[in-house]
Each structure stands twice: as structure tokens, then as C-alpha cells.
């Protein structure tokens, strides 16, 4: 007779199956119950926008840095958004290579979802001269499954939290107007010494942060693991290891479905699909409640 702990380690699949057969999950949830979501917005005060998501034990921190840069020639009137995801060693205790690979996959996933929804033309201060470059970095601090949903939610919350200082280009002659217009402004100069003969750029940044991003219609995701003809909403790390097949529902904030992501694996029956969709809609409501409460 082997103990439960050993059995869990040696035969994880069998172990999980025994639970799921009884419609219960190892952590005590029902198959259709998601973990408790905690969302803290604006906790990192050195970033222009930030959010901390805790989904059960899974902890994800997203922060946004802002830089004023010269736009690239192809899109002179568009700002730039950089997205990266890092899986911290504290999260899983795995080596750098393994983590790196997983982080790249997550970053790509997040990028394709988020970027189309940011109107980069609002990040333009003045075409051809000065635009904002936002770098969104998501750190996975504790990994207990379903990083996908947490990462997307944290990213959305952090971006919605972004407050940029007001920036105005100053031309020599209107300097006086600005002086009277904005208090607590300071002069900055964004020109690089290296740039040859280019007209130098001057901008005024106010120390008040008012400008928020226009980020309507952002995406939210709800993931399921398919196991024994059942869909486990919000899988934990233990469940993710055992299951191979995963479905992610991409939702609109309104609760409508925008898309679905499924990479092979088990077949999703229409019945299961409908049930998942219904669960997703409920879950999105929960997300929205937290998002609105936090901001």
C-alpha cells in the first residue's frame, strides 16, 4: 500500500482520474469552479501602470514603462508597444532554458491578443518627431497553473491603469504660452547627441499624470483543460501537467465570444463547447467586476 502522496507523484494521471471521475478536483473544486481571483491595480508605484493578479496561488505582476522616442520611419505617427513575459525562477524553480521557452510562448500568445486592441496612433505626440513607447512586462511570480488567463488579465489591467504625463511639443515661439498653461512642467530634451544636424526636439512633460490609454473592447480569456470528456475550468499546475489538451475562449468584455484557441488534442464535443461557453461568459462577468472595482 503506497501513501497518497507517493501515488500522486508516481501516477499523477491515475490520481487525477480518480478525482475527476467523481466530479471533484484534487484541490477540492468542482469541475466547473474557477479559483478565487484577486486583482490589485497600481501596486508598483514606479511604473506608469501596473497590476497584480492572483488566481489561487498563481501570481502574476504586470507593469508598464513609458519612454519618449522618435518614431520609426515606416509609421511616423504611431507609438510603439512592446510586450514581454518573464517566468521568474521563484515561480517554478526550473532552469533558465525551460523557463525561457515557456515565457516566449506566453509572450507570443499575449502579443497576438493584446496588440491589435491598442490604438497606437493615440501614443503619438507629434508625427515624425515624438511618440510614446510603452513596454509592458509581465512577471510570473508564482506558477500554479493557468498562466495564460492570469497574464492576459494582468496585462489588460495594467494597460488600463496606465496614466501618462501630458506631453506637448514646444516650438521656440510658443514657449511662453506653455509656461502659463501648465504648472509644474519641466523642460526635457529628447534629442540625441549622435543624431546629425537634426532639428532638436523639445517637449514639456507635466508632472500630473492624466492621459489614459483608450483600451475598449480588450480581450479576456478563459481556459479549460480537457480531461476524460470533461472540461476543467482554470486548471491548476498539477492538472496542466497531466492533461494535454487545452481550449481557450477569447471573450469580449461584454461577454460575447471573440474567438477560440485550441491546439489539437482531444475533440471538443458541441455539448461540451456550449457548456464551456456558458462558463466563460460567467467568468468574464467575474473578471469585469474585479477590473471595475480595482480601477
Amino acid at each position, binding site marked *: 500500500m503506497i501513501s497518497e502522496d507517493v501515488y500522486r507523484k508516481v501516477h499523477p494521471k491515475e490520481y487525477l482520474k480518480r478525482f475527476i471521475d467523481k466530479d471533484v478536483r484534487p484541490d477540492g473544486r468542482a469541475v466547473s469552479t474557477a479559483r478565487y481571483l484577486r486583482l490589485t491595480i497600481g501596486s*508598483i508605484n*514606479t*511604473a506608469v501602470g*501596473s497590476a497584480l493578479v492572483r488566481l*489561487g*496561488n498563481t*501570481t502574476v*505582476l504586470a*507593469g*508598464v*514603462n513609458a519612454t519618449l522616442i522618435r518614431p520609426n520611419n515606416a509609421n511616423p505617427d504611431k507609438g510603439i508597444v512592446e510586450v*514581454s513575459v518573464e517566468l*521568474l*525562477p*521563484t*515561480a*517554478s*524553480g*526550473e*532552469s*533558465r532554458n525551460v523557463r525561457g521557452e515557456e515565457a516566449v510562448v506566453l509572450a507570443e500568445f499575449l502579443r497576438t491578443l493584446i496588440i491589435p486592441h491598442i490604438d497606437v496612433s493615440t501614443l503619438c505626440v507629434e508625427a515624425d518627431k515624438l511618440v510614446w513607447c510603452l*513596454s509592458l*512586462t509581465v*512577471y510570473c*511570480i*508564482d*506558477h*500554479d497553473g493557468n498562466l495564460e488567463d492570469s497574464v492576459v488579465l494582468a496585462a489588460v489591467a495594467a494597460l488600463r491603469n496606465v496614466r501618462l504625463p501630458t506631453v506637448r511639443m514646444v516650438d521656440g515661439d510658443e514657449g511662453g504660452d506653455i509656461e502659463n498653461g501648465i504648472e509644474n512642467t519641466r523642460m526635457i530634451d529628447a534629442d540625441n547627441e549622435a543624431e546629425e544636424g537634426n532639428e532638436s526636439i523639445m517637449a514639456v512633460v507635466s508632472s500630473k499624470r492624466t492621459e489614459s490609454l483608450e483600451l475598449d473592447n480588450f480581450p479576456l480569456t478563459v481556459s479549460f483543460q480537457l480531461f476524460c470528456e470533461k472540461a476543467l475550468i482554470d486548471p491548476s*499546475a498539477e492538472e496542466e501537467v497531466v492533461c494535454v489538451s487545452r481550449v481557450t475562449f477569447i471573450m469580449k468584455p461584454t461577454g460575447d465570444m471573440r474567438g477560440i484557441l485550441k491546439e489539437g488534442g482531444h475533440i471538443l464535443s458541441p455539448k461540451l463547447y456550449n457548456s464551456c461557453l456558458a462558463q466563460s461568459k460567467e467568468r468574464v462577468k467575474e473578471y469585469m467586476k474585479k477590473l471595475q472595482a480595482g480601477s
Partner: protein
Amino acid sequence: MAPPPKRGRGGGARGLEYISLDGLRVDGRLHTEVRKIRCSLGTLSRADGSAYYEQGNTRVLAAVYGPREPTGRDFEHDKAIVKCEFSTAMFASTARRRTWKGDRKSTAAAIVVQRLFEGVILLAEYPRCQIDIYVQVLQNDGGTLVAAVNAACLALINAGVAMSDYVVACSVGYVDNTFVADPNSLESGSDRPELTLAITPHSGKICSCQLVSKLADDASFESAMQYATAGAKQIFQVLEYEVKKYSLGLLDSRGMVAL
């Protein structure tokens, strides 16, 4: 020598006044005081031991994995090996230059933490094992190494790794010809001396002592050590209180004591 400033009545003073006429530092502390410390144990689920540690605006997270099977090829047949990784979040720093994992400063800090704990962990208890210490700086306002050591100490305690004593670190800066305990990012600069001292508080032994830049001729090393030791003792009180609180909480959750 400061070249004689030639300035008019109009010119404002440059730089900061690090110690005010009333003896207060830039943030209002006295020269012997350390910043406000907050910490908690067991904050991460996957890690064997973890701690969140805040020293003023410097915030770090430490996780300990192990003792476990060596992940790489290295191991010692009669004792455990300690590995440490140190990284800084993108948005952590208010300083101009960013640091990230793998750069010179982080590597140096990682080695300090590793060496430090190799001396305190009872390695012989865990032959053929590896203990990983991961330190993540979430926000940097000076003294990241100090915070890293203190957080790692808490995380190791949380992981139940056998150690001969606590390890508590504290740094001492030197501004306006005065020593200041636990300098923040404003008070520490590349051109100013900074002493980082780690001690075992019960035995009072020195585990590690790092001096960046050179002390001014009239500043004695001994008094710098005194400041650091006094600062470390202040920090130790907070750590010990937190560990006791956490342990009592554990006992309580198992119904072993009534709080």
C-alpha cells in the same frame, strides 16, 4: 577640494543636502535609523520556502527550492551545494541604469548571497543535494543586496533548511562627511563609499563585508562597522518577530497552541 564656486546671488545650490541642519536625512530619518521593514514568509506556493521583504521602497521576493536533486551535473557527495540567481524587474529601478539578470552587478550579488549562505547552512546535513535561492528585485530604492540577503534568510527559514544562525545584512553609506545607516538610492552613488555588512546576530560574527569605493581618509572603518552592526541589529528584531509570528501561526493552524 571643491573648486571655489563662483556664483552669484541668483544661483541655487547644486545637488542635495544630505543631512539637514536639523540632522535629518533626505527622507527624514536620523543617521542611525534604517528604513521601515515589512516582511512575510511563505508567500509563494510552488517554492519550498519563500519570503517577501520590503525595506522602504526596496522590495524583493526570495524563493528557495530544495534541498532537492541537483538539476545540473555538479554535486558534492558529502554536502549540499547552494546556487543563487538574482534578477531585477524592468520597472524596478528609479536609478537611471537598469539591471537585469546576468549582468555584472546581478551576478556579483548572486555570488555574494551564495557564498554567504554556504557558510551558514549546515550543508553536511544534505549530501548530494542542491539548494536554489532565487531573489527577484521588484522595486529598487537602494540596498538591494541587503534586502536580498535578509529575504533569502527568511526564505531559507521558511523552507526549513538547517542553518547555524540567522544572517542579517545592513549597509552604511557616507554622505556629507557622516555615516548613514541603510542608505537609499539617493544616498548611495557610484562615487560614494558604501559598506555592506552581513552578520550572524546571535554570535555576532561577520559573514560578509563589502566595501564599494574607498572610505575618505578621515572616516574610520571601525565606526562604519559599528553603524552597520547597529543597523543589522535593528533589522534582526523585525525579522525575528516575523519568524516567530509565522511559526506560531503554523502551530496554531495545526492546533498545537492557542494564540
